[in-house]
């Protein structure tokens, strides 16, 4: 069991989408932060913030640049649950996500119940496996 609130970074260039997801995850008990571009997200991932989940859109200031956010998040230790949430899933970006071993790929419009249930499950599993590794 986690003693603190789980945290999520939501990266989406559509402010309304990011804000809505922030409210949804706050309602689920998360501490939710938003960033609206890859450029805004990368420094958050580089400094001392520890996120349990990093969820990113793909097409922001450039097409597919969300893969950079995902890649950076995958390199973090402890590694957060990495989620791509996109309205433009393609063979290219889905293959890239599979190769990168991201944890979840959601397509917009996302079913919020399904998304929150999946992410809650992934966070619990990650927490359990971290405890086992410790």
């Amino acid at each position, binding site marked *: 069991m986690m003693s603190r609130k789980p945290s999520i970074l939501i990266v989406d260039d559509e402010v309304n989408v990011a804000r809505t997801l922030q409210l949804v995850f706050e309602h689920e008990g998360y501490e939710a932060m938003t960033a609206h571009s890859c450029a805004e997200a990368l420094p958050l991932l580089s400094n001392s913030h520890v996120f349990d989940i990093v969820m990113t859109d793909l097409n922001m200031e450039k097409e597919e640049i969300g893969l950079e956010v995902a890649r950076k998040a995958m390199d973090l230790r402890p590694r957060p649950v990495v989620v791509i949430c996109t309205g433009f899933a393609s*063979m290219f970006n*889905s293959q890239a996500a*599979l190769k990168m071993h*991201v944890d979840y*790929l959601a397509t917009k419009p996302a079913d919020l119940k399904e998304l929150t249930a*999946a992410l809650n499950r992934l966070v619990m*599993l990650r927490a359990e496996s971290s405890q086992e590794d410790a």
Partner: protein
Amino acid sequence: MLKMAATTGTQPKIALVVHPDVGVLSAFQSALTQKGFVTIVARDVPTTLLAMTQHYFDLAVVSSHLSEPGDGWPVAGVLHLAFPRCFIGVLAPETSVLILQAAINNGVREIYQQHTAPPEVVSAILAELLPSSPQDSHKVQ
């Protein structure tokens, strides 16, 4: 469920193959055994669940179509939950965005075309596993 082969060595890796076709199971068993795996095979979901209670799997190859199209995906998902470090490959009829999404969301590491020859699939899996594999017997020859 049939336990089809065992390797010499102290800690043989254990593979699970789930496929409705006995011919395919036999071909995978042969290919995996040649590479040093103990291979457990199952033709359906109940047998797969039974196998999961009896072994710890390092590798699994699952057909996306067991008794009906797509029912192999949740089997792969459950295998990933039970054995988080297990390499899971799924044999699928095609590669599409939906299939890639199913793979990612079920913890599948790689998709293989369902008609690919089993030795080719095994070689491809071992090539993926090699960087993290401590066992020389698993090298692709």
